């Protein structure tokens, strides 16, 4: 992949291997004079799971909002699959294949589980703008939607209103909906928060599975999951990158131990 002039500088912890699909350089965002994110360089690679960790308020969700263009960066550039997306709209970025989940579970509460997943499929399958057709035409998407519902163990809740699901099930549904879009780059903000142990194992396995053909960037507080499935870890503290590398390197870094784990044993 040829680097554009904007992205000429490689990230400090550049590692050889899979191609970079999502790049940020000098990313920063201020809120009324308060710097929430500053000088963040990231390289997210195809077929790798990249963890973004850090204490509460470090700016992880803000980085996600910047990368997906839900927030406009104050400084810096973002490049997705060779295209500069720094000035693009969030829905356009999503259509290019960068799809996110939300820290606070984001489902459509008044739609059923099946309808939730189908909403994701409607746009790519060109069944979103027809206001003259009956709803029944959406049944064409059922088989495809069911494959995601089954894969995430939601089959028995297929016709349940999403708002009536338990918190953990809502998170699982959100992942099913996100995967239904077949994103090229998947951004997951604490996907396993609030899930039971069984679901954590299931979702970890699914993430590892889907990451074989796409890039995953995830915020995760569960460090054993991070150690288990993540290829690369970036530690954020007070909006700045504190350390990058594989899990063992990062975990051994004394600054990380002080900042993130709160101890210096």
């Amino acid at each position, binding site marked *: 992949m040829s680097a554009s002039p904007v992205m000429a500088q490689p990230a400090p912890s550049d590692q050889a291997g899979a191609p970079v699909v999502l790049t940020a350089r000098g990313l920063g965002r201020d809120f009324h004079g308060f710097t929430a994110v500053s000088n963040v360089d990231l390289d997210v690679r195809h077929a790798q799971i990249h963890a973004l960790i850090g204490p509460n308020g470090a700016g992880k969700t803000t980085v996600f909002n910047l990368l997906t263009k*839900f927030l406009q960066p104050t400084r810096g550039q973002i490049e997705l699959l060779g295209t500069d997306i720094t000035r693009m709209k969030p829905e356009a970025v999503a259509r290019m294949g960068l799809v996110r989940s939300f820290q606070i579970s984001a489902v459509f509460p008044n739609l059923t589980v099946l309808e939730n997943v*189908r909403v994701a499929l409607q*746009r790519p399958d060109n069944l979103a703008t027809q206001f003259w057709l009956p709803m029944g035409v959406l049944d064409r998407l059922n088989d495809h939607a069911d494959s995601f519902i089954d894969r995430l163990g939601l089959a028995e809740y297929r016709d349940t209103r999403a708002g009536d699901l338990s918190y953990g099930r809502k998170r699982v549904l959100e992942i099913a909906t996100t995967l239904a879009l077949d994103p090229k780059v998947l951004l997951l903000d604490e996907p396993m928060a609030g899930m039971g142990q069984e679901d954590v194992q299931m979702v970890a396995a699914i993430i590892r599975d889907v990451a074989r053909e796409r890039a995953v960037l995830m915020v995760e507080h569960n460090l054993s999951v991070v150690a288990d499935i993540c290829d690369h870890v970036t530690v954020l503290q007070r909006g700045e990158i504190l350390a990058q590398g594989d899990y063992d390197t990062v975990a051994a870094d004394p600054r990380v131990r002080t900042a993130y784990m709160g101890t210096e044993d």
Partner: protein
Amino acid sequence: MAHPTSGPAAGPQIREIRSAGTIRMAIPLVALAAALIAPFWFYPIFVMKFLCFALFAAAFNLLLGYTGLLSFGHAAFFGGGAYFTAHVVKIWGLTPELGLIVGTLGAAALGLVIGAIALRRSGIYFTMITLALAQMFYFFCLQAPFTHGEDGLQLGPRGHLFGVIDLGQAMNLYYFVLAVVLIGMFVIWRFVNSPFGMILRSIRDNEQRAISLGYSVQAYKLGAFVMSAALSGLAGGLKALVFQLATLTDVAWQMSGEVVLMTLIGGIGTQAGPVVGSGVFIALQNNLATSDFPVTIIMGVVFMVCVLVFRRGIVGNSLPRASGGRLG
């Protein structure tokens, strides 16, 4: 004492579901039958007024109930439709059905402009901008010569439908109005129960999530806004044909308030809610018009009772949670 049962081994729950389904099927048929014979029981003009407002409230509910947008400027579309229809019927000599088409398209165009501006903001700001723009349209109507200001635009004889059927005949007029309202209701029903309607519901439920799935939510909202404006214009045009009059009352902000009340009283996000709400509203208005008591106060009290007692409106509360009043 043994009760004979209707079906063999049909459990009480199954029978309940079946009868609920039958009732849901039966209600529209009963309503249709009632509408067909209503002019023999009530003043046709009263029933037609109700029909016009039922369509107006249903068009408004398309936006509030199914898209989650509260407009406080719908009088512009209702009144605009009334003026456009009345003008082309009176001055251009168009037939009533063509007049309605012009009223509908005119209101749609107005909706496109107002919607495109107001949708730049959300929440209460959106509502305030719709009110402000509708007020601008009101003052335009107040000043423009074609509206005849305070006198209103008065229509002559009602004319002939397709140049053939004399709408001067009360019954002809009534069934024409009923047919137009039923068509309008069908369009709304199809619209909210379409692939597009599903995306609108998802936007109503969680706009950020819809964006993250790649939907240009502004375009979808604008589509719903224009459709709602167009059908409000149809209702307004119909009202002008029925009363042979388009006036400033139709474009005044009170009209925007009334349609909000009707829809909330009946229950938002249901098909029947706006119809029931406008029925209650028109009946109250008619009965109170002859009393000395200020109508607005009674309406206010009725509204408060409805909102406090039936939180999801009359219709929303009488349906099980899954099948209606989904906005609760």
